[in-house]
């Protein structure tokens, strides 16, 4: 007889969905440090709509958005969803996973029960007129980040996703390697390949900030795969080796400079002069790292406030600064003179659409992009993984936790 609740790794018969499941969740009364906010709970297994699937999760990636979810800042995702009429008073998150399709809604055509998949985190309403009109769904009003702005993500034994989010799992990868990379990889791919004409071409120089993080490491990999040349920026010398192993052509330690942060008033000659001196020295460091006087055609930004004025300065004439986050703050001063005289472009980018997630997964499948798995943790270490991330003590690359996979090293064929 079917059980109501299965232990982790204890598989129900294929296609049979138990009433309850284990999941890590945050509740509003626990908002705060991730190690306390995330708790393992038994929750009802979610039901699915016609366009949705249930995925038996084998392994999950860890992303910064679920550090925010734990803190309840900058957005209380639970309150947001309650306001929109969803009934759950908890957040069972997780935006990256590998697993097996366990149930499908009647409209799902691209996958069937039993398929091994990974899930990308672009979620949108199927009846959104923007999406129906064939435009890029990542610009639709209804677009959400799955497992952050939506519930029942990859920290559940059974995750609920939309059919279109599923991509065939790269066969050579273990569950943990397959489950750890896609959010960062698809975000980095859209940034580097999604904004014509500023896509990475053979020989292009790309400056990558925060190159040992999940996002930065995948950027290095994608740039190599496209034939570009990445100059990595890190904050200490210990990180240089990792960058060179992931195909950076040069590495700069930014702690050797001190002009970071909001650009001083251009009318304050001395302060502005010092800033400009720092920015010029950083530009020279890029040339030194490359061994030639070529400025980056694309600057891959996510620190924001601390680094953006420098990014604007060092970007090549006619080049692009592309940004997806502001991990050091959001208030940026742009000197528009560089912008128009040198005809530069400042481009915002957010996650990816189906095509971009598929494209980068193909590169991984072909062995051209390494998923940059750093370390794999047990399911119950999930709160600690988020804490490491908040404290900036996480290992280089992408962390994974095992959900139903009983141990590491499984799932590859």
């Amino acid at each position, binding site marked *: 007889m079917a059980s109501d609740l299965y232990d982790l790794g204890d598989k129900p018969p294929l296609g049979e969905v138990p009433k309850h499941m284990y999941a890590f969740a945050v509740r509003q009364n626990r908002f705060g440090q991730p190690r306390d906010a995330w708790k393992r709970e038994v929750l009802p297994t979610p039901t699915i709509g016609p366009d949705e699937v249930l995925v038996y999760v084998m392994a999950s990636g860890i992303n910064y958005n679920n550090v925010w979810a734990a803190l309840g800042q900058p957005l209380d995702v639970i309150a947001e969803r309650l306001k929109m009429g969803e009934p759950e008073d908890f957040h069972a998150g997780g935006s990256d996973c590998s697993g097996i399709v366990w149930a499908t809604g009647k409209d799902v055509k691209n996958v069937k029960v039993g398929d091994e998949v990974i899930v990308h985190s672009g979620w949108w309403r199927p009846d959104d007129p923007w999406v129906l009109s064939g435009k*890029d769904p*990542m*610009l639709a*009003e209804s677009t959400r980040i799955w497992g952050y702005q939506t519930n029942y993500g990859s920290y559940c034994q059974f995750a609920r996703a939309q059919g279109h989010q599923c991509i065939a799992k790269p066969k050579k990868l273990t569950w943990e390697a397959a489950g750890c990379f896609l959010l960062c990889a698809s975000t980095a791919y859209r940034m580097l390949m999604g*904004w014509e004409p500023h896509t990475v071409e053979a020989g292009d120089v790309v400056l990558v900030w925060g190159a040992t993080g999940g996002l930065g490491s995948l950027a290095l990999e994608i740039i190599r795969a496209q034939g570009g040349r990445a100059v990595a920026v890190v904050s200490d010398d210990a990180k240089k080796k990792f960058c060179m192993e992931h195909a950076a052509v040069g590495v700069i330690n930014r702690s050797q400079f001190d002009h970071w942060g909001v*650009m001083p*008033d*251009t009318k304050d000659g001395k302060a502005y002069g010092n800033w400009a001196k720092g920015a010029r020295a950083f530009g020279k460091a890029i040339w030194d790292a490359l061994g030639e006087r070529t400025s980056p055609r694309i600057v891959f930004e996510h620190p*924001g*406030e601390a680094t*953006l004025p420098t990014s604007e300065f060092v970007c090549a*004439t*006619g080049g692009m600064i592309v*940004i*997806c*986050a*502001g991990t050091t703050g*959001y*208030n*940026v*001063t*742009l*000197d*528009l*003179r*560089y*912008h*128009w*005289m*040198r*005809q*530069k*472009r*400042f*481009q*915002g*980018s*957010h996650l990816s659409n189906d095509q971009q997630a598929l494209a980068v997964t193909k590169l991984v499948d072909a062995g051209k992009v390494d998923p940059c798995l750093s370390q794999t943790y047990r399911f119950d270490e999930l709160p600690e993984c988020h804490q490491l991330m908040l404290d900036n003590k996480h290992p280089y690359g992408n962390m994974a936790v095992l959900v139903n996979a009983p141990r590491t090293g499984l799932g590859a064929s």
Partner: protein
Amino acid sequence: MKALAFAEHGGLDKLRYQDVADPKIGDGDVLVRVRAAALNHLDLFVREGLPGLTLPMPFWTGCDIAGDVAEVGAAVRDVKVGERVAVNPNLYDGRCEYCLRGEHSLCVRYGILGEHTHGGLAEYVKVEARHVIRLPEAIRYEDAAAFVLVNMTAWRMLVTQARLRAGEDLLILGVGGGVSSTAVQIGKLCGARVWVTSSSDEKLERARALGADECINYAKQDWVKVIGEKTGRRGVDVVLENVGAATWKGAIRTVAKGGRIVTCGATSGPIAETDIRLVFWKQLSIIGSTMSNDAEFNAVMGQLFAGRLRAIVDTVMPLREGVEAQRRLAEGKQFGKIVLTS
């Protein structure tokens, strides 16, 4: 010959209608007898002096030029004495990586005729033969001169950089300026709904006559709020921005998801405070643009010749009254171009 020249940088008092040496042309050049030259803010900036710009004195500016070919160099084959022409003011080396891909205004040695070399506020100007374009009979010198610089700039901004499409909403901030006012008609030509702002009802009326659909007097109404309400909080697809610091935050708030802000100047100051959350959540493109390449120049001149775009002329004055003309421009009283004839 006569020129509206200055011997040292400074205010209007440095400017004099005076005798200067005639230009000497090389084998690949033509000499143009200037019939009309339009003013730009660039004329004022150069007269006042720009950092890093060292000029042979006496100097005279003028980058919007139309006239007659008076003389051609020995190697010039396809331009003839007596032809009526307008001048493409691009100066570039033709060899750098940007020139080789046709991006002339990105040239590493890019310059503008009348900013980096002696210009058209004179009776004669020396121009490379490849940079004159023949004027059809119906096009007056004054209109051709008034048309060139602002239209090549606005065309590149809207058509190439922002890729403005039929049915989109275009917002033009501060519609009195030369680029902004002509952008109204380019926006309409592209099939966009055009929104404009100004503090002057008179300028808004002029913009409406050029085809502007929605006119907002920002001195009387909060333009960000008005656009938010009238677009159902969606915002506009494209913002043409050359005001800078004073309007930047509003521009970032007003542009729709996936929208484009294209900037070519900053009359209120270049330091733009930006909340980058709006940039990445809305996935905005903020694009810098300056002048145009030769293909864009030819394309937009073609629109003038075909009657699909027209020159917007504020006043026509003789060159010898150029000091007064520059005063009018400096005071910002004009709508459209001030043209000097000789």
